[in-house]
């Protein structure tokens, strides 16, 4: 990474072919269309899921916003700070945001940039289905919050 890295990173993950699981990358794509990308202050990335090499995508950022679908939410979306934590696993097929930050900490020997998790309410993950109407409505609300996040110099209160 170099000094040319955009100070703000929005990173969403999920599978576009699996119903509400698409919410993370959908929000990032919509945000990229709305935000002032030309200023060079914001970079938007998506992937199927978090993996260890994404720790390198965090280097040099001022702030990072993670976006993912989440089950069990009572509200359209929830916002929380993410901090490094050790998480055990049995397969390489998933990595928690906390574990990613711990990888960052140990690789870079420094604290990761302030990271926020935007979790969007999700219920259905059927293959080949589009997100539900409720999920799309929640996505619109979450997008508003994310847009505000990109404009803030300080963290938007959860």
């Amino acid at each position, binding site marked *: 990474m170099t000094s040319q890295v955009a100070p703000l990173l929005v990173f969403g*993950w*999920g*599978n*576009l*072919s*699996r119903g*509400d*699981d698409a919410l993370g990358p959908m929000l990032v794509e919509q945000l990229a269309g709305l935000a002032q990308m030309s200023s060079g202050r914001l970079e938007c990335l*998506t*992937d*199927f*899921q*978090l*993996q*260890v*090499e994404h*720790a*390198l995508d965090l280097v040099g950022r001022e702030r990072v916003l993670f976006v*993912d*679908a*989440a*089950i*069990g*939410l009572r509200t359209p979306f929830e916002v929380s700070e993410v901090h490094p*934590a*050790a*998480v*055990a*696993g*049995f*397969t*390489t*097929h*998933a*990595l*928690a945001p*906390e*574990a990613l930050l*711990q*990888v960052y900490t*140990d*690789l870079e*020997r420094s604290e990761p940039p302030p990271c926020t*998790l935007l*979790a969007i309410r*999700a219920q259905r*993950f059927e*293959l*080949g289905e589009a997100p539900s109407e409720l999920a799309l409505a929640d996505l619109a609300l979450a997008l508003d919050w994310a847009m505000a996040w990109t404009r803030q110099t300080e963290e938007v209160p959860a």
Partner: protein
Amino acid sequence: MTETVRPLETAAHPQGLRRVVIDPVSRVEGHGKVTLLLDDDNRIQQVRLHIVEFRGFEQFIVGRPYWEVPVMVQRLCGICPVSHHLAASKALDRVVGGWPVPEAANQIRRLMHYGQIVQSHALHFFHLSSPDLLFGFDAAVAQRNIVGVAMAHPEAARQGVMLRKFGQEVIRITAGKRVHGTGSVPGGMNRAVDAAERDVLRAQLPEVLAWAEAAVDLAERLHTGLPKHLVGFAETPAAMMSLVGPGGAMEFYDGTLRVREADGRVAVDGFEDQGYRELIGEGVKPWTYMKFPYRLALGPDAGWYRVGPLARVQNCDFIATPRAEARRRAFVDAHGGRPVHTVLATHWARMIELLHGVEVVADLLNDPAILGGPLLATGERQRSGVGIIEAPRGTLIHEYEVGDDDLVTSCNLIVSTTHNNQAMNEAVRSVALQYLDGQTITEPLLNHIEVAIRAYDPCLSCATHALGQMPLAVTLRNARGEVLDHVHRSSRGDTVRGTRPHSAEAAL
């Protein structure tokens, strides 16, 4: 089909047995779990590994235009989308009469595939497996992960991440994008490699080769240093199947099928991929969605086999790159030339493959064919095609039939984890009998089972990883079905204990 019952697969009298569920839920509808049924003396009566495989993907493909398929199937799995991308392309090469593809397309595809092998193997070893080997199965949960590796062996952890990154970059310059690449199409490729991007990766090769050599060193050192009581961990003699290349060379992209018996004798050789249905059948059992492939000649009971690194390294006669071949010979010599079936040796074999992958990538980056030339071939249209490839976890089969209207009319996929279904079940039963039978269930003991599963790194068939899942849940019930204990470790690493069972436990 008649169900075949193997030892410990089904308890004779399941009523009144205590039930322990290891439920590493990491996805929404698909997850793996191990169920153990214990009697009042904590003797194991039944062990089953359930991996929910999403067979519905085959129906998802039917009715789609064939040219969409190589891109669509990448959404089967977020870890090895390239393997699906290329297996589908190879099958559909046959349909468009484009097999073999032009030399440039062949070399670019090979480069893409070996990049996939490198990135996936690096992720597996450094992120998933090395913690167990470095710290032992009884180490604290907080240490048994990449974090522990990074703290204790920071340079090894960094090299693991950088190896993964290198493999991802190889994929990007060949497939066009970091994820959801579109480079491979039926009949060939739609893009060549940019010379400037090639040169960037070529400049990294000396360092990457050194990292890969160091990875084999680490895996070998960890394996040969295992304490005596773990040397035979989860030893499950099994036949071994993989593709091999000309002369019996290790081969990941294209070759013929070979099956070697558990005692090392070659049973099947030179079997053409298009006829795989004459070699392999697919059995079903009522307690799991995932099928059980078997050799038709031996039937569903005796015909199961293993695929993946441990099978491939022993199934081939040699590796065509010098560094990896030297390591393969060391692997064979270390075991006295005898077949190896202890699952922990998989990690050593995997790192030998990673080194081979880097060597092949190096060769291909020096091949001017990847920079351009004819990329597409066409010919007489066929109704169906089979594509077989060695994905990181083992043999991957795609088969399609396409109608005159260009729509897919039939699809059959056999993924690596499905091939290994019985082998994984046998490994888990071996561990349960060796370490848990008659014992009080503790977290380190449960981890022994997870260690056996981790060696295979089962693919959970498609990336769906919404927040809020619990990677591990354990429920203990008494003979009357009452919950005695329940523990779950959330996806954020915190452990909660209580008496409320996880919902998935009801789905036994």
